[in-house]
């Protein structure tokens, strides 16, 4: 809290508040437009199925988060505007009162100077002032001085409490606005639940198993893990008049790893294997895919002592899908295989484009 001419004066810049209110109002408008656009965009006629369900659910969740947030910003903008108006009005009124007081102070100082000058000019006139006020210059100066002092006292007595009241009202308004701001800050959007990541576009299947066994005197462990991400499943029927052929094909990527270690009368046997592929794969076929679609990074390790482990994981980022599968088994001495696969979804889409041709090839193979 500042002071002007001895009066309490509210701190703050109304223009800054107005500017902040304007920015919040603009922000709310942008958010409302985005929210409306999302709500409109998720209504896609002609798209049905599970992925459309994921899409619309996520879109609704996003729009639902944004709507109340924009409303909170609108309220905050409105409160800031009110506070700016009150602050500006209070500052204007107190400045006017301060101007009155400062003018009275100037008159008081001028009257004091005039009185000093009169007393200097008539050092023996003090008694005359007492006996005949107003009958001499000194008497008039004395009276003017007393009036100026009285006027200044009256103005101060009148405006000091009024200024304090205005400042107190503004302090309360400031507190209310700050409270609204805190509420709006708390209603800032968090991540919407259910928003799909690139992963959710794929049908994912993972499997991992590991265990020990003892059969016919052979003791061993085995482990396997696999992961499959299917982008699209295709189905085609061919009818040549004499027979009908149905072919199922998938577009996606998969990886699997397995390891086995056995020790028995025949000695120690170790084995590990794995594969990964990406592209379009049709039943009874090989694969048709672009080598650039995925990168395979295998690694092996040696193990000592019994143990088995297997697992599969998948992650996605802006660069694509990343698979990891590992399997390891050891009876006494064993080994493990770890496959890391990076898949480019764009390559998968290209493979998807080729998939119908793959099916035609299968049809040719089938005769």
């Amino acid at each position, binding site marked *: 809290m500042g002071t002007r001419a001895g009066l309490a004066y509210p*701190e*703050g810049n109304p223009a800054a508040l107005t500017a902040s209110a304007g920015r919040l109002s603009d*922000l709310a408008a942008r958010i409302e437009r985005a929210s409306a656009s999302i709500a409109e965009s998720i209504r896609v006629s002609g798209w049905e199925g*599970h992925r459309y369900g994921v899409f619309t659910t996520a879109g609704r969740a996003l729009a639902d988060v944004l709507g109340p947030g924009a409303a909170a910003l609108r309220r905050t903008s409105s409160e800031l505007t009110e506070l700016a108006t009150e602050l500006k009005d209070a500052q204007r009124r107190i400045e006017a009162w301060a101007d009155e007081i400062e003018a009275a102070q100037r008159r008081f100082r001028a009257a004091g100077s005039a009185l000093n000058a009169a007393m200097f000019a008539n050092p023996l006139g003090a008694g005359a002032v007492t006996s005949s006020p107003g009958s001499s210059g000194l008497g008039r100066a004395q009276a003017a001085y007393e009036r100026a002092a009285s006027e200044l006292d009256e103005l101060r007595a009148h405006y000091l409490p009024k200024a304090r009241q205005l400042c107190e009202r503004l302090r309360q308004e400031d507190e209310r606005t700050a409270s609204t701001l805190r509420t709006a800050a708390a209603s*800032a959007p968090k991540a919407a639940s259910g928003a799909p990541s690139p992963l959710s576009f794929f049908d994912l299947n993972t499997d991992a198993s590991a265990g020990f066994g003892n059969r016919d005197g052979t003791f061993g462990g085995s482990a396997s893990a696999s992961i499959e991400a299917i982008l699209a499943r295709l189905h085609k029927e061919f009818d040549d008049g004499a027979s009908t052929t149905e072919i199922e094909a998938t577009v996606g990527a998969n990886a699997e790893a397995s390891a086995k270690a056995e020790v028995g009368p025949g000695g120690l046997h170790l084995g590990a294997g794995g594969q990964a592929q990406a592209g379009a794969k049709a039943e009874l076929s090989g694969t048709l895919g672009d080598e650039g679609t995925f990168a395979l990074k295998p690694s092996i390790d040696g193990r000592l002592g019994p143990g088995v482990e297997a697992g599969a994981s998948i992650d996605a980022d802006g660069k694509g899908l990343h698979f990891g599968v590992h399997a390891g088994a050891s009876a006494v001495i064993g080994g493990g295989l770890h496959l890391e696969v990076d898949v480019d979804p764009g390559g998968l889409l290209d493979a998807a484009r080729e998939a119908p041709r793959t099916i035609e090839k299968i049809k040719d193979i089938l005769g």
Partner: protein
Amino acid sequence: MIANDPAQTRSAGSRLTAAGGELLYAAGGANPGSGAGGDATPRTDATLGALGSAWTSGLRTLGEQVEALGRYANLAATAYERAGG
């Protein structure tokens, strides 16, 4: 049943990507206290910063999610367009 109209789906994806971009742009200007030219009022001024920080972070997250949803729709359109051709 699984069906898709690639053109409409791609249009939805484009609109969502644009809406996500709009939110990310809004996140960049979500600080209501910056550049106002001076202090507001003491208590309000202190909370304007917190408000801006919370909304900047939240809008950035949501903007990325909306853009991701747009890419999801575009991916769907491309997949069905190519696979169904």
